[in-house]
């Protein structure tokens, strides 16, 4: 094993940060340009069905910068981003930062809650399935994976919200306890498919590890069953589980759109939908960039965590 010098470590870090920055830069360009290639003209939305005079049209185009050439608009937008200025929303007369900022906390709470459900229940059920459950868990998981979140939302809402009255059916609530109460059903609806997938992966990985030679060896040496499972099976199975979970979780931000609409929550997901419908480009760009950033950050975290889970990875580098 080689001992890395501090210098080398920081170079590796710089490289990683550089990779992150360039990924974001490339996506920022793709995001910005793709929306301008999309059919339709945001001006049509901005004039809201009036018949403006050519001068008024020119004034609107100038106010929103549509009269500038594409590279200039991209540069303005990019430099704005670096100063924390995401531009003005066309649809809601406010800055994009404030529009997203006011909706982000509830969406983050929803995503966090769903993450907990996915990780804790997903991994838990997977382990249970590998050790005891067998067929029952497989069937449950197949059903769970096949339930799209909007179907789950409809069922949960009408059974636990309308019929039984245990949970609220709309809104996000105020105060932490109330918010959790409001978010539980949406979080379940959001998590159910992903949870099933994580269960599947966990179970498969566990089963594979259980059949490995080293597990048989430690078992034959008389190591307690729980220690075998924890140290030799689960730990080795964690690699694929973490990778899959991370991918799923970083995609949760997008999936909130459907669930938020179904539960009447005004979060980032439903904002994305309405912004797309209204050609509110600055908001769409900011939300998409946020989603990409979430992906990049989560995957970087996984990269960092991986060597801790599996020292072989560190050795290989």
């Amino acid at each position, binding site marked *: 094993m080689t001992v890395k010098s501090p210098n080398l470590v920081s170079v590796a870090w710089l490289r990683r940060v550089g990779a992150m920055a360039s990924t974001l830069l490339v996506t920022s360009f793709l995001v910005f340009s793709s929306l301008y290639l999309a059919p339709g003209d945001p001006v*049509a939305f901005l004039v809201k069905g009036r018949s403006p005079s050519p001068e008024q049209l020119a004034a609107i185009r100038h106010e929103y910068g549509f009269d500038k050439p594409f590279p200039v608009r991209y540069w303005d937008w990019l430099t704005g981003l670096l100063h924390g200025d995401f531009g003005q929303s066309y649809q809601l*007369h406010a800055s994009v930062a404030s529009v997203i900022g006011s909706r982000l906390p509830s969406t983050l709470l929803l995503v966090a809650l769903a993450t907990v459900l996915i990780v804790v229940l997903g991994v838990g059920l997977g382990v249970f399935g590998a050790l005891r459950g067998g067929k029952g868990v497989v069937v449950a998981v197949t059903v769970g994976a096949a339930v799209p979140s909007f179907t789950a939302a409809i069922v949960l809402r009408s059974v636990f919200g*309308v019929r039984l009255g245990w949970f609220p059916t709309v809104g996000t609530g105020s105060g932490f306890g109330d918010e959790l109460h409001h978010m539980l059903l949406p979080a379940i609806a959001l998590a159910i498919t992903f949870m099933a997938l994580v269960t599947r992966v966990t179970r498969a990985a566990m089963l594979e590890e259980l059949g490995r030679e080293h597990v048989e060896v430690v078992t034959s040496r008389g190591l307690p069953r729980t220690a075998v499972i924890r140290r030799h099976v689960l730990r080795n199975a964690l690699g694929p589980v973490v990778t899959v979970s991370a991918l799923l979780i970083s995609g949760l931000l997008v999936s909130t759109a459907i669930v938020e609409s179904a539960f009447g929550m005004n979060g980032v997901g439903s904002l994305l939908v*309405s912004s797309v419908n209204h050609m509110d480009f600055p908001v769409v760009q900011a939300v998409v960039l946020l989603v990409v950033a979430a992906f990049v950050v989560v995957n970087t975290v996984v990269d960092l965590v991986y060597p801790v889970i599996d020292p072989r990875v560190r050795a290989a580098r």
Partner: protein
Amino acid sequence: MTVTIRSRRTALAAATALALTVTAAACSGKAGGSGGSRDGRAGSTTGAGKTSYHLTADTGTPKGDVDSFTWSLFAEPPSIDYTQAFDYPPNQVLANVCESLLRWNPDLTTSPGLATAWQNPDSKTWVFTIRDGVRFHDGTTLTADDVVASLSRNMDPDAASVWANQYRNVDKIEKTGPLQVTVHLKSPDSTFLEYMAASPGTVESAATLTADGKDYGGPAKGVNCTGPFSFGSWQPGQSIVLKRFDGYWDPSLKAHSKQVKFVFIVDPTARVNAFQTGEVDGGWMIPPGSFSQLASNVSFGKSTMVADEVVANLSGPLGDPRVRQALLMATDRKGIIDAGDGGVGEIADSLVSADNWSNAPEAEKKAGTTGLPSYPYDKAKAKALAQQAGVHGQEVVIATSPLDTQTTIITQAIAQACTDIGLTPKIDTIAADKYTALFTDPAARKGVDLFLTFWYTSITDPLDMYASLETGAFSNYGGYSNKDFDAAFEQAVGSYDPAARAQATGKAQQIALTELPWLPLYDEPVSVYQGPKITGVKPSIDYLYYPWAAEIGAR
């Protein structure tokens, strides 16, 4: 000339699902529009069928006051600036906060509002006497200066008012006394006064307009008007709260509730669920699929809304008026109402609802609403007429968008009618924003023969609708042009005498209904839900401009 596309935004999931349905139906050519066999399809999730219904003028006097009630909007208003208020969400909030010179009443008549009297000494001048002693929510007193500043703002290119068109004939607005404002017109305009009962006549404090600038009407600043409720707070993405204004000038409309909280719920099913669990106390525009579910808590009221199929191309296969007449005759309009609207609605006799004639003298009202050219459902007769006009399988493009169930059902019924008279329909399903562009962009209408609109008028006057059929009008989507129609229309706009105006309007209407540049489908009443805690609302389309929330109190 009001451009109105009813925007009922649907959740992404539902929208996608609907889009697939439409495409599938279009491909298989199965449109199914005959007979009433499709009942209940509208609200398959809620199992609604036909609903027997009647219009209610008044839902009863509240037993007492309430502390607060919660009301649902199908979308968050982008702004509550009156010059930008041109959709259901901003208008129904603003109606309770800001007032206009005239008031549009639940029976669709007008009466004095912030102006106590008005005269027109000549056909190009309106003189308004402003009500004395009215206070804005910040405690300042209403003066003629506020009126001049507020009205003039609609003509300011920087303000980019959506109501600029209603001011197209205005030359100058000036203060002619401490409580007197004079409007000078470039040419006589009989509808100008009526628009003073809607958003174009809104009065805001001049000082507030200056102080708030670009932020006026936004979440941070709100508005400062004279209505029975004042702007309380606006949490973007969550809610708008209005507070009762204790200094309100009109004791008869003093609010029964200390507070109204508007919440934004886009998904129709989520809205209905919230009604059922009591999380939300009420709302306007109830999804037809839930009429039977919400039962007696839903009331219906007067409306100026008509669902129309707009003929966007008058030089194509639908260029011959006989083909358009045949198409309307072959359309199963009763079937559309039953399947799409839960049976709530009436086959439209005209492009305007009968209520639009409320202000006309009795004789003219009768002339304007009876004995009109009619097109009862008759497939055989329609087919014969179309053949006479040379129909032989030409293709017509029907543009649609997955907006809501009604839109889908109507489009399929129209496609069926096209098939029945020998045309070849092609349903073109486009995205919601592209659909919106049909109403504003002539280029977007290229290659489109027919599209659907739910058209309401903001004043009680058929002229508001018929303005769209004048040669060269912005919303004259098919480029319809008829000299006799234009002459009758211009005569009506220039006539201040109600009888003369109504007669000229009737003449224009007769031409429009014979030539059918738009096909009238059905009148849709206004629907409103009030939960078990509250009552008192007067169901009427005037909820866009009348302080309806003030009348809601304890049941």
